[in-house]
């Protein structure tokens, strides 16, 4: 089972999910973004994200709720930016410039032991090929156009 960190990113009210699948054997990671607005799941190969791992431990002790777990954490405030880090140097929450990044799913030592959610259901489902009254009318119009085109096109 791979270690992974799944963040919920809220930017001006719109939600996307960002998952990092960490491979410890060759120090690579796969970045998966899930966008419920466009119903897309995209993945990229990336290097280990330094911006969410290996952060400096400074600030006041606090607590972070991840699923059913309580994770002891350290919180630091700098201007408008709030950063919450776990004791093993993983980013748990970041609030800055109207964007909130929160860890919501994880399988990581010292944090939680979950299995990743179904990305496709997280992206939401839209019926791209619906069959309704309008489609039926469209098919009828298509059939009629077929008869017309047979006459019109030599």
């Amino acid at each position, binding site marked *: 089972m791979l270690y992974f960190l799944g963040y919920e990113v809220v930017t001006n009210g719109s939600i996307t999910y960002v998952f990092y699948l960490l491979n410890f054997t060759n120090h690579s990671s796969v970045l998966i973004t899930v966008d419920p*607005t*466009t*119903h*897309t799941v995209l993945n990229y190969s990336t290097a280990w994200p330094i911006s969410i791992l290996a952060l400096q431990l400074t600030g006041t002790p606090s607590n972070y709720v991840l699923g059913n777990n309580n994770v002891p954490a350290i919180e630091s405030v700098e201007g408008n930016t709030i950063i919450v880090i776990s004791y093993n140097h993983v980013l748990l929450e970041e609030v800055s410039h109207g964007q909130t990044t929160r860890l919501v799913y994880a399988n990581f030592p010292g944090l939680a032991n979950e299995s990743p959610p179904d990305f496709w259901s997280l992206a*939401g489902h*839209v*019926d*791209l*090929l*619906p*069959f309704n009254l*309008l*489609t039926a009318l*469209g*098919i009828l*119009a*298509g*059939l*009629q*156009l*077929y008869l*017309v*085109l*047979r006459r019109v*096109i*030599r």
Partner: protein
Amino acid sequence: MILVRKEDVSWLSVGLAFLSVTFSFGLNLTLGRTTFLHLLYSPLLAQLLVIASALALSTRMGYYVFSLPIAFLSYLVPVEYVSLVVLLIAVSSVRALPTFAREILLAIDAFGLTYVIFALLGIRLNPLAIPMAVVQAGAPILIPVVLFAGILYGLKVRGEDVEPQSINPVLAVLLGLVITLIPMTQLNSLHVPETVDWRYYSQWWESPTMGWFFFSRPLYLLMFFPFARLLGPSIMGELQLPVLTVLLWISSYKLGEAVKPGLGPLSSFMAVVSPTLLTFLYSGLQANLFSISLMYLSLAYIIEGKVWQSVLTSYVSMFSHIYAWAQIEGGILLFCLISFLLTRKIGKPLKTYVLFTSFPFILGFSLILTGFFSVPVGFSTSNYFTQVAFLSWGTINTFLYYLIVVYGMNSTPRIMFVIYSSSILATLFLGVVQNLIIDLPLFIPASLGISKLREDVRTPLLLFLALWALFMSLNSFPYVFQGVTI
């Protein structure tokens, strides 16, 4: 007799096997700029179709009965391999176009036309686009096969004279403008084209900087700089594509007329509906389009024997976008080398052209090799199929278009055949598979292929290609579908 002619039965099995390939991989449909992969994926249906295909095949000719056990293998091995094999067997039994080709094309056209009319009114009836998508985008796995078959098919030259089909020349430029202007209308929920690149151009015109972006396309950026200052960089950035479409129309018209008098209107039509323009619609790369248009003009001048014009346009093309220029120039030089080795003589205009343009080619090529202009080198199967199938959001997979290209390949002038073959072979060594394919003057073999086709299927086919281009244009931007933006 209810039974159709024998040739038609073999086409029936080709059609069934093709559908089986589509269902075994799933349909790739581009809607609202997002390519949705593996729609209608159904291995069971694929198995049934491949068996039906083999049955139809063995009823035609007894000795094709060996395809039946192959088809039943789909219960043991993954059906996608089996349906590919059966498709190839079925294609080998084909002799001529079937009588029902026209009816099928017209039916697909009718549904496509209904889709386009409703989409222009703001109502999306996606199921109506399925018949079009099955033929054009349903089986991208077959596109590399078709492209390489073009090299083999083009090797044998047939001396038959092709009578170009005549169409209205204004039709092509109107269609091209509609295709490139639809993304700027109210149908687009963003109200600006969603292409990736135009922002970089308008950024450069706003604050010019020296760097890789400038050095790879200096002339193009400088040429449009005054207009960008006059109109405003963002408006100029957006309007590049319609302007360049007119240029593409002119150059493809001229190249068509140079290849064969009377071919111009049809070749410009095929240029406007080609995967080339559709890919530029999705990806930007405006300097690239400018450069290849000028290179087509240069080719036309070489064929007509006007050396100085061709050298001049070649240089303008080089300074506008070095990559596209290097590809076509390399093809021309390779053609000279091959024809010199085979016949020991080169025509005078071509010799002068080579004399005046080979030095910058060697210089530019060494700059590419040294890494100043970087090019990804190396072959990987996954990269290859990603690029062919959906890198540019599905636009490159225009299966029927490539099929027509291959059909016209043996009537194409040899210089263009060498450019085609060298570029297709280069896709095995370079990582930029898609760029190599779209920069080719595919509209010449395509228009020759259309002209060679039987009369009753030509017009339905042209209508089909135009409708596909409109479908891709209508889906090149996000829109609201069932309450959500896709």
